[in-house]
């Protein structure tokens, strides 16, 4: 069964550094998402992406964050100038278009640790 993959599984970075989290959505899916889960807290929506542009974003997704689909397979989340509070598990998800758009398929996550 096709899966969403994410790399790396764990990223450690120093405060103030830029990080790029990578995701490969399921082939032929059209909608892409990023979520984060701070340890012990709920999963929070960051951004959705469709047709090469942001579809919706939450209050969390400020100018520090950006997303990109640099080629036909990857979907990236860039965090500029990381802060301690950016430490979290980041999940990528994708969903197909049309009538199946409602189901989102999640990747295993990237654990980001900012020191």
């Amino acid at each position, binding site marked *: 069964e096709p899966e*969403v993959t994410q790399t790396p599984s764990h990223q450690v970075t120093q405060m103030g550094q830029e990080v790029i989290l990578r995701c490969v959505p399921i082939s032929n899916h059209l*909608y892409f*998402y990023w*979520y984060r889960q701070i340890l012990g*807290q*709920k*999963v*929070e*929506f*960051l*951004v*959705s992406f*469709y047709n090469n542009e942001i*579809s*919706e974003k*939450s209050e969390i997704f400020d100018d520090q964050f950006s997303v990109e689909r640099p080629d036909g397979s990857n979907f990236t989340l860039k965090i500029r100038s990381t802060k301690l509070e950016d430490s979290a598990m980041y*999940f990528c*998800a994708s*969903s197909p278009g049309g009538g199946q*758009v*409602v*189901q*989102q*398929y*999640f*990747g*295993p*996550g990237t654990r980001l640790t900012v020191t």
Partner: protein
Amino acid sequence: AQSVTQLDSQVPVFEEAPVELRCNYSSSVSVYLFWYVQYPNQGLQLLLKYLSGSTLVKGINGFEAEFNKSQTSFHLRKPSVHISDTAEYFCAVSRASRGGADGLTFGKGTHLIIQP
């Protein structure tokens, strides 16, 4: 805006006993409802979803949930749990008007602990 409340942060249950995980939501518009399961060190897996139609929906691994519009609830049930059901369970909603392309709003999760 939508919100999801999972009142129970932790639910201990004996193996083979029934279980109900509670979920209540708040929204000014129609929503789709979901239950996801997260096993240790893994991503989120969809258990079941309610989009429309029959209020009782069946999912994978023997789980089912009932949508109650008047009580704005979507409780998850299983008649007989197994050790392998030990996991974190998340209830989530998205706006129906957006065709599901919306981001999901999650509850805080319920940790289901199965005791032998």
